[in-house]
C-alpha cells in the first residue's frame, strides 16, 4: 500500500485501567503472553504494506521507545521512511488539553510525507486485519473518511463509539454511548482518509478551540464530510478497562480466536527476546492455557496465560490468571483470578484469590 501512511495515536484515557498503567501507557500493556497492545495495530499496518508509520507518543513514553526502538522487529527500520516518533506537543496551551494539539503540532510531518492517504489507528485495540481492503472500500465508495467497525454481538459495559449506517456503509450517525447494546456497530478507532482532508479536519478543529481528535475532529465535524464505514468480521477487543483486559485475555484461550489472531498467515510482530522453549517437568499439569517461551512448569496451570520466563514451582496451582514476565511462583502457592504484573514473587504457600469477574492485581516487582 504505497499510497498510505500510518499514524498510531497512543494517547488514551486510562482512568478505568489505572492498576495496569501506573508506569506505562495503555499501548504498552503486556498481552497474550508475549506481546504489547501496540503490536496488533502496528503489525496489521506493516502486513498491509504500510512503510511509513508515525507513532504519536503518549506522556509516559519510555516503555514504548524501549519496545519499538528502531522498528527493526516490525521491518520498519528503513533507510527511507519507516518508523517515526512524534513526541507530545510541549507548548502548553491551557485551552487545548486533549490529544488534538499533538496532531496539530505534527501536521508538517504529515504534509511532508509522500503518501496520498493517512490511516489513523489507536494503540489499544486487538485485531489482525488487512487494511488494503479498507483502502479499496474507501476508493470504491468515494468516501471522504472511512471508519472501520465491528459488530458486537453482546452488550458491552463501558462506553463505545457506536455507528449507524445505511446499507451501503454510509454513516448516518456517530455517537459516544455509555452502554453498547447487543449487535451494535462499534468503531475500532481506525480512520482512513485523504491526507488533505486529515490536515483540514485537524486545523479546523484545533483552530476553533477543539482539544480532542475524536470529539472535535470527527464527531463535531461529521456533517461536513461523507463518512463511510467498513465492517471487519474478525475478532476485536477494545482494551479500556481492567475488566475488558481480563476478558480479552481469557478470550485468547479459545483456540479458534488464538488461531485467527496469530496463526492465519499474517503474524503479529513484537520485540524479539530469544527465550528457550518451555520446560515442562515431571509434575507439570497444564490445561487450557497459553504458555510463553522461557517458562519452567512444575505445578498446575489452568485457564491461564503465562508470559515469558515465569517459574511455576512444585505444588503450585494457578487458575484463571494472567502471570506476566519473569514472575516466580514458589512451592504450593495458589493463585485464582489474579493478574500478576512483571517480576512478582509469590513466596511458598501463599494464597491469592480475586473475584471471578474482577481479578486481583499484584503490581510490578511486588513480593508476597
Amino acid at each position, binding site marked *: 500500500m504505497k499510497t498510505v501512511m500510518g499514524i498510531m495515536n497512543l494517547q488514551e484515557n486510562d482512568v478505568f485501567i489505572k492498576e495496569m498503567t501506573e508506569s506505562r501507557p495503555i499501548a504498552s500493556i503486556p498481552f497474550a503472553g508475549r506481546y504489547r497492545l501496540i503490536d496488533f495495530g502496528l503489525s496489521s499496518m506493516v502486513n498491509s504494506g504500510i512503510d511509513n508509520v508515525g507513532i504519536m507518543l503518549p506522556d509516559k513514553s519510555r516503555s514504548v521507545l524501549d519496545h519499538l526502538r528502531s522498528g527493526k522487529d516490525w521491518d520498519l527500520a528503513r533507510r527511507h521512511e519507516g518508523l517515526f516518533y512524534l513526541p507530545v506537543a510541549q507548548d502548553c496551551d491551557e485551552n487545548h488539553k486533549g490529544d488534538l494539539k499533538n496532531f496539530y503540532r505534527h501536521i508538517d510531518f504529515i504534509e511532508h510525507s509522500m503518501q496520498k492517504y493517512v490511516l489513523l489507528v489507536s494503540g489499544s485495540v486487538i485485531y489482525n486485519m488487512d487494511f488494503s481492503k479498507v483502502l479499496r472500500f474507501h476508493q470504491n465508495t468515494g468516501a471522504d473518511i472511512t471508519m472501520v467497525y465491528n459488530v458486537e454481538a453482546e452488550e458491552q459495559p463501558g462506553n463505545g463509539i457506536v455507528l449507524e449506517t445505511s446499507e451501503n456503509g454510509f454513516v448516518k450517525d456517530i455517537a459516544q454511548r455509555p452502554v453498547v447494546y447487543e449487535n451494535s456497530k462499534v468503531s475500532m478507532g481506525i480512520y482512513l482518509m485523504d491526507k488533505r482532508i486529515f490536515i483540514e479536519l485537524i486545523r479546523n478543529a484545533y483552530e476553533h478551540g477543539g482539544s480532542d481528535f475524536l470529539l472535535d475532529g470527527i464527531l463535531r465535524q461529521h456533517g461536513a464530510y461523507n463518512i463511510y464505514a467498513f465492517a471487519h468480521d474478525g475478532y476485536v477487543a477494545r482494551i479500556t478497562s481492567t475488566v475488558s483486559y481480563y476478558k480479552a485475555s481469557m478470550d485468547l484461550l479459545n483456540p479458534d480466536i488464538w488461531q485467527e489472531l496469530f496463526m492465519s498467515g499474517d503474524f503479529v510482530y513484537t520485540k524479539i527476546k530469544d527465550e528457550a522453549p518451555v520446560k515442562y517437568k515431571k509434575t507439570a*499439569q497444564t490445561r487450557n492455557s497459553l504458555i510463553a517461551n522461557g517458562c519452567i512448569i512444575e505445578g498446575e496451570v489452568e485457564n491461564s496465560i503465562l508470559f515469558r520466563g515465569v517459574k511455576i514451582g512444585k505444588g503450585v496451582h494457578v487458575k484463571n490468571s494472567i502471570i506476566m514476565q519473569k514472575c516466580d511462583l514458589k512451592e504450593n502457592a495458589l493463585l485464582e483470578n489474579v493478574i500478576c504484573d512483571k517480576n512478582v514473587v509469590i513466596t511458598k504457600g501463599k494464597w491469592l484469590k480475586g473475584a471471578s469477574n474482577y481479578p486481583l492485581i499484584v503490581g510490578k516487582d511486588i513480593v508476597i
Partner: protein
Amino acid sequence: MRKTECLAMILAGGQGSRLGALTKKIAKPAVPFGGKYRIIDFPLSNCANSGINKVGVLTQYRPLELHNYLGTGGAWDLDKKDGGVFILPPYAREKGADWYKGTADAIYQNLNFIDSIDPDYVLVLSGDHIYTMDYSWMIESHKMNKAEATIGVIEVPWDEAPRFGIMNTAKNGRIEEFEEKPVKPKSNLASMGIYIFNKSFLKRYLEEDAKDSVSSHDFGKNIIPKMLTDNARLFSYAFDGYWKDVGTIESLWQANMDLLQDEPPFSMDGLWKIYSAGLSMPPHYIGEMAKVTTSLVSEGAMIFGEVKNSVIFPGVKVGKGARVTNSVIMPFTTIAENAIVDKAIVAQNCEISAGAKVVGADGAIIVIPEGEIILSEAGNKQVG
C-alpha cells in the same frame, strides 16, 4: 577501524550423510535442534557472545535453506558496520572452479578472504556441534602459551576414546602426539575440532598442503599431524562442559533428550544466550484434555493430546488422543488425533494422520523425512 584480532571460520559445508533422511534437502548445520534452534546457532551464538564479530560460514552441500536462515547475521547481532556473517560457498576463478575437497582445502580456498580481513588469529569451528563456549578464554590461553596453534580438547570416557582424534599432552598443555582413532589410546583427551591458528602460520601450512596431491586436505588427517612433525608450538585447551557431536541420528536424538533432564546439562537462555532466527509466533496453546510432562514445547504449537519426554518445535499440532513420547517433532508437523509417535525424529512439515503409528523399534530411532505424510493404513511403520 581497529585491527581484527580473531576471525572465525565455521565449516558448514558437509552433507552429514549419517543423518540420512534429515539432510536429504538441507545441510547438517541447518537441521533443527532443541525445540527452537538450528545446529549452527551454537557456534554462531558462541562467536557473538565471545566478542568475535567477523564470522565466515563455509557452505557447500545444499546451502539454500542455510543461506536464507543466516541472512545478514542480524539474529546473532552480527550485522555490524565493521563485522558480520560472511557466507562463503566455493567460487570460480580464472583457472576454473573447485568444490571444497576437505576441511583444510575449504579454508585454503578462502585465503583471499582471510587476507582481506587480516586477523591475528583464525578460529576454525565445525558447524555441527552442540555446546556453549567462550572462545575468548581459548584465545587468551593461545596468547599466553605463545602458541602457533591451539586445539580445543575435551575429556571423553576411556571406552569411547577410540572413536576420536586423541591428543597426548605434556603437563603444560603442549601437544606431543596426535592419534586418530587409536585402538589403544594413551590419553582420553579428544580433539573437539576447534582450532586457533596464527594467521600466517596457518597460511603457510595450507599453501604447502594444497601442493600435495596425495593429501586429503583435512585438518585432523593432514594439517595437524604435519604441524606436529615440524615440532610447531601446538597447545591444547581443555574444555569442561557439555559438548556433543550430533552427526548421527542416535546422537542428535540423544542430545535433544539430554535437554529434558531435570537439571539440563547446559542452558540456552541463561547468561550465555543462544540466538536463533525464527518466525514471530505466539505462546503455544495447551488444550483442555492435554497432558504435557518432561518435555520442551515452543511457540505457535497447539497441544491437545499427550506429550511426554519429547521436544516439540514451533507450529506443531498434536491432536486429541494422540500420544507423543520420547520423540523430536520438528516445525509445523501435524500429528493428528489418536496417532502414536514413539522414539522418533519427525522432520518439518510432516503429517502423521489420525490413528497412524510411528514407533521406533529394537532400540533404533525412526526418522520421518521432511514433508512426508504417514497414513494410518500403512500400519505400524517400524524401522528396518
